[in-house]
């Protein structure tokens, strides 16, 4: 029986066998390229961005022409930044600012939910810089000795906001309305930093006057999906497939033309703190710490502020 199954496996994979003909499991390349992430949101950069805040771009033409684009060589000068997905919208501007401030340096972002990035790193993924949207994950990686000691620094912060599709199909005008029957709400899973913040905000609201337990259970039963990243929540709202989504304020500010927002009062809001750190295993620590310097510099902070992040 077992032999029969093995043989059927063999037959089913006849073409694979044909290609690899007898080679054992291919040795995994030591440096797996970080998945390139789509900077699609970049096209919708808010007009409020102050372009003049950046020095005039002096593109490193010489480097670009002399070397045939070694994108993933991890050579000094290339920074692979594992970055919380909520920075998706601002990431192209950050890259531009960094590459302007340090001509010759380049940064490539791997944008995903911090919980996913953390798992990738714990399973051996290579990166130079880690930007976390949650102190809990930062602490976990710090304990695991993944960071260069002393490089773990608070980067920025973000509040939670409720966004609605532009045409507001459910006619939501207040946070109370989220409890109306039939309202469809998207949130991030509690493993995602913004999901933790959302849970905290809903909990805080439930405890405050005018909401209460009933509101809490109605809102919870209106949740139709627990997404695995913050942009995934925003995407469902933008498509109009849900009536409301809990995201970060930065997402609303970067996409004001796409959403309507119901703000959450600061008193019951949850401030999620982002951190940045240089990885212990980085082979380009110089460029990595340059990137950190840029992110914490007035330039970097201004870009984040323009995109709705709350300065520390």
């Amino acid at each position, binding site marked *: *029986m077992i032999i*029969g*199954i*093995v043989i*059927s*496996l*063999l037959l089913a*994979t006849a073409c*694979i*066998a044909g290609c*690899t*003909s*007898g*080679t*054992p*499991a291919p040795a995994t390349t030591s440096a797996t390229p970080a998945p390139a992430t789509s900077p699609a949101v970049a096209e919708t950069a808010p007009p409020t961005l102050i372009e003049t805040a950046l020095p005039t771009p002096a593109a490193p033409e010489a480097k670009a022409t002399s070397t045939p684009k070694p994108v993933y060589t991890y050579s000094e000068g290339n920074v692979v930044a594992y970055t919380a997905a909520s920075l998706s919208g601002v990431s192209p501007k950050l890259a531009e600012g960094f590459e302007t401030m340090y001509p010759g340096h380049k940064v490539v972002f791997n944008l995903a*939910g911090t*919980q*996913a990035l*953390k*798992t990738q790193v714990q399973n051996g993924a290579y990166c130079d810089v880690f930007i976390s949207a949650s102190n809990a994950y930062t602490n976990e990686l710090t304990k695991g000795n993944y960071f260069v000691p002393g490089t773990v620094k608070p980067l920025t912060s973000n509040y939670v906001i409720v966004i609605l599709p532009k045409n507001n*199909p459910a006619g939501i005008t207040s946070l109370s309305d989220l409890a109306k029957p039939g309202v*469809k709400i*998207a949130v991030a*899973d*509690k*493993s995602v930093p913004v999901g933790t913040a959302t849970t905290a905000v809903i909990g805080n609201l439930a405890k405050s006057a005018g909401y209460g337990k009933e509101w809490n259970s109605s809102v919870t039963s209106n*949740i*139709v*999906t*627990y*997404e*695995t990243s913050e942009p995934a929540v925003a995407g*469902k709202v933008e*498509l*109009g*497939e*849900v009536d409301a989504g809990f995201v970060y304020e930065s997402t609303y500010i970067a996409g004001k033309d796409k959403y309507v927002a119901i703000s959450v009062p600061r008193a019951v809001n949850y401030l999620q703190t982002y951190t940045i750190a240089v990885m212990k295993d980085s082979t380009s620590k110089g460029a990595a710490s340059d990137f950190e310097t840029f992110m914490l510099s007035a330039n970097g902070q201004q870009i984040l502020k323009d995109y709705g992040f709350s300065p520390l």
Partner: protein
Amino acid sequence: MKPSSLIPEQYRRLLLYAGAVFLVLSVTLYLALPVAALFFRTTPELFWASLSDPLVISALWLSLTTSAISLFIVILVGTPFAYVHSRSVYPGKVLVDTLIDLPLVLPPAVAGFALLVLYGRMGLIGQYFRMLGIPIAFTTLAVIMAQIFVASPFYLRQAKSLFEQFDRSYEHTARTLGATPLRTFLTITLPLTAGGLVSGAVMTFGRALGEFGATIMFAGNLPGVTQTMPLAVYVGMESNFNLGLTISILLVIISFLIMIAVRILTKPEVPHA
């Protein structure tokens, strides 16, 4: 020059033998080792402990019921479709053949996006369902629709080719003896193709059970409602490693049983001694 003059015959055979063993081993190990690694990473205690987790139970229950419903619909609609399709000549038949095979090669994420764009409440058709107050996206119905979309070709292909290859003289005989076309189909064609149909059905069930990409995009990820086992594995890997591991192992076991079932069902009739 004869090769046997270089290497003695017994060594030549030995080399050939070694080469064959190496080939079989390397291919088998490459495919089986990752699956085996899942079992090495857990302990029976951890496995049993997380097996009783409500998240695992609800994902398992949801996956099995939705896959079963998907399969039921595919058989119910797919069998007559495949029969009619294989027994008739009509313009555009090649196109239909191609279109129903498309989900086999289409990335499931694209399938999910397409389903959302059609049935989502802003979608081409979904907007009318919304007026009728029928939500589709982000419901269990969406899970089933995604599964049918990606998994039905496995059954349809199998059924089509079985009906095409079926020796029609049996059918003709039945008809000349006065049986109605329906009776002929139910008493002659169906029983004689049943083995192959069931193996196609089992493959469809397996594909439906493993469906991930279209589901997470079209049906969302809500425990108990749309969070099937593959989605729970995905979330588990990022938040609760042991849960992810346990569900993965469950899926491996189920997939293995499916393959065994297919092998038994497609085994050619044992000739009489």
